[in-house]
């Protein structure tokens, strides 16, 4: 299994990993600023990027918590449900990596959209392992640095509404959702979930409408016989990484 990688292939994989890490790092700034705007302090914001380390879940966590501390259980639930896909990625990359002991713990923490996508996209196993580790470590470092930058900027800004940061949060969820809307079924699930959440919002505690909407849409999705392609781990494959 351990076939050495030609230097040219090695450079190509590392270049790909780095471009993904830089692109992802760029939106760590928006996470840091939004987290501060949502009422978390700098240490809590940084802890999320270090420990939770999964963009979608982090945005969701602070988004739900923004409505007030009473939303904490719903924030945890939303973040965790969004993290389910990382478990699925773990399944795929564990076959590729065959890591044991501490290196398996590190691999688990680095198992996210981007590292999985680069890892499984490589034709050879050796390149896949390199791609996974390089992307995972690269995103981790840049994501945490840019989170800190964003948090410091957010701290200095004051009222988040004045800078449109509440709209930025909505746009961030839009941008995370966008690449997944690849079929009519995906659109239908998204529309149903959004409508249910908004209709329910005035009548339920913060965060609960999102969870109910998600399960409703899921029930509908599971019931439909139409075939969904498995979710691609990520979406920048069509050309240079940009999200």
């Amino acid at each position, binding site marked *: 299994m351990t076939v050495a990688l030609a230097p040219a292939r090695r450079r190509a994989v590392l270049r790909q990993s780095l471009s993904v890490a830089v692109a992802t790092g760029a939106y760590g700034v928006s996470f840091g600023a939004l987290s501060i705007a949502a009422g978390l302090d700098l240490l809590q914001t940084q802890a999320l990027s270090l420990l939770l380390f999964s963009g979608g879940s982090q945005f969701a966590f602070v988004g739900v918590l923004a409505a007030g501390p009473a939303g904490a259980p719903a924030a*945890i639930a939303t973040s965790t449900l969004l993290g389910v*896909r990382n478990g*699925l990625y773990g399944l795929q990359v564990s076959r590729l990596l065959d890591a044991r002991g501490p290196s398996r713990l590190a691999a688990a923490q680095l198992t996210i959209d981007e590292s999985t996508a680069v890892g499984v996209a490589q034709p050879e196993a050796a390149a896949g392992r390199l791609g996974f580790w390089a992307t995972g470590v690269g995103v981790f470092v840049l994501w945490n640095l840019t989170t800190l930058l964003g948090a410091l900027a957010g701290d200095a800004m004051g009222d988040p509404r004045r800078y449109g940061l509440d709209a930025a949060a909505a746009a961030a969820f839009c941008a995370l959702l966008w690449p997944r809307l690849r079929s009519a079924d995906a659109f239908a699930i998204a529309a149903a979930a959004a409508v249910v959440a908004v209709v329910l*919002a005035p009548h339920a505690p913060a965060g609960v409408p*999102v969870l109910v*909407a*998600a399960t409703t849409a899921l029930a509908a*999705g599971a019931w439909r016989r139409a075939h*969904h*392609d498995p979710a691609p781990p990520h979406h920048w494959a069509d050309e240079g990484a940009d999200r």
Partner: protein
Amino acid sequence: MSTWTAVLLASALAFALKYAGHLVPASWLDGDRTTRITSALPIALLAALVGVQTLTSSSGAVVVDSRAAAVGVAVVALVLRAPFIVVVVLAAAVAAGLRLLGLP
């Protein structure tokens, strides 16, 4: 529940899910229905979050304000394949601009 408790609990659960993926036998999760549900889950959650973040106030009331226009612009930017950071900054700029003009 304190914010710190929530942060640490959410982090622990996120890690548990990642690690579980590395531990369980692959055969556990093969199957069409599982694949369908796990691909639909993020779609449903993210769409619900878009709806709530765009159209409801912090008290839960449904309101149409500058955020709706900002998200409209964000969607146009996404159609034009703008990068994530451009989409987010554009939406913030639109909302901030409209509020500067006195809109809610």
